[in-house]
């Protein structure tokens, strides 16, 4: 991805994130992830129904990388089944770890394809998906589909 486009995607999503702030949290599963080595702190709220993610929001304070990645992730997971969301996460992690991955499937998430060059930022870029994984696990444990 071209550097300018990459930057534009990240800045747009950091400055005007999608689904930040949720007034009525009823029916949402909440998970938190904070970065122990820095100060990123994200609460993710996900609503599951019939095995699908039907809605998601986030709250919290984080750097531009974490905030934008959370915003893009939320946009992409709404409407997906849990399995689809997990495979999106796997592809994303493959990209972050510089393994082969499905570029087309990741769409705007390709903006983080060069994050491996800044190892200290990997945690920032993966924080939203770590949190998503937690909500999916909670939904399994609590048998919420």
């Amino acid at each position, binding site marked *: 991805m071209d550097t300018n486009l990459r*930057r534009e995607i*990240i800045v747009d999503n950091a400055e005007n994130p999608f689904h930040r702030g949720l007034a009525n949290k009823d029916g949402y599963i909440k998970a938190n992830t904070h970065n122990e080595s820095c*100060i*990123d702190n994200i609460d993710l709220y996900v609503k599951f129904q019939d095995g699908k993610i039907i809605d998601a929001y986030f709250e919290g*304070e984080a*750097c*531009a990388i974490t905030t934008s990645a959370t915003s893009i992730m939320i946009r992409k997971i709404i409407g997906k089944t849990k399995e689809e969301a997990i495979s999106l996460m796997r592809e994303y992690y493959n990209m972050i770890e510089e393994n082969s991955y499905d570029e087309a499937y990741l769409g705007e998430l390709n903006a983080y394809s060069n994050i491996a060059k800044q190892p200290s930022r990997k945690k920032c870029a993966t924080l939203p998906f770590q949190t998503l994984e937690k909500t999916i696990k909670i939904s399994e444990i609590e048998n919420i589909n």
Partner: protein
Amino acid sequence: MNRDDFLMLNNDYIYFDNGATTFKPNSVVNKVVDYYTKYTANSHRGDYDLSQKVDYLYEETRDKVKDFINASSSKEIIFTSGTTMSLNMIVFGFMKYYLQKGDEILITKAEHASNVLPWLELEKEIGIVVKYIPLKDLKVDLETVKNCITEKTKVISLAYITNVIGDIRPIKEIAKLIHENNGLIVVDGAQSVPHIKTNVIEDDIDFLAFSAHKMLGPTGTGVLYGKYIYLDKMKPIFYGGGMNSRFESTKEIEYKTLPLRLEAGTQNIAGVLGLSASIDYLNSIGMNKIHEHELELKNYLLEKLKSIDNITVYNKNTDSGIVVFNIDNIFSEDTSRYLNHYHIFVRAGNHCTKMVKDELGIKNTCRISFYLYNTKEEIDKLIEVLKNNKDLYEIIL
């Protein structure tokens, strides 16, 4: 003050994170190296020349610390690993036995984790009650303190200067209030002892904790000061070599007197000797001069920052060399990464003061903390970079 005294300043760095740690002058580094290359020996252990020399230098440092904070006796000076260890010794070696269930402790939400968590643990352990003095304009106000003190209040534990807001607390007056209530005052001096003149007698401080590395000295070394009557009642947290005078198989045990009773095991001798050199360095400049210099830098920075629209400063009205700010709508960590690109080092985050958000109304900030070697020219460079902050994302992304 000569910037050539600091090898770290030969690098192209602008170091504004002195609240976290400070650079070391060559005299401190040399003192540590000399211990390891010219007179390595343990202290208080041997009768040979090297050991005697180390003993002399080690105890000479204790005397220097005593004079530096104006304590009554060198027996009131205990070497520790730093402020955190000192505060933990006060809480778990003294307060645990001095306090009773239901006794109240006053702190604030602006205290460093090391002056919060030990108290909260003791609360769980023995049932003391930790209460927060509300801040007024981010400061500790005497009237408010008066209103918080009840007949159950036994201790007030405060930083002399806070590490985020940077306000200087009226410790002398607060000490008077708590003493009138038959309580004690504990002072976290981590951010004050390196920057302003400390006088434990004049302020009537019962316990004081501070670290060497924030005052030009080595890491891993700190000081616990306590009035002799209280310190003598402190139970050691560590038992072993160096702190006992005899023990028998019959289990008769006798411990040493102060200060050695509270310094079990081989101490950080190199660190203590380095602290000695750092005190010499600070004394050669003068603590009042250091404080004046930092205030001048702070006022200079605040004046210059007025020319940049999108910067919010949170602590304009405090009298120390600490400035906390944010670029509007930019996360503090992104700002510090941006400044890092220009080799300007500031701290981003909550600065180990996770409750201050309740008072400041904001969780994360960038903190600039000055020291004696910082200059107006460095501030000019910072301002130039901050003025161009519209380029921030181009630099960090």
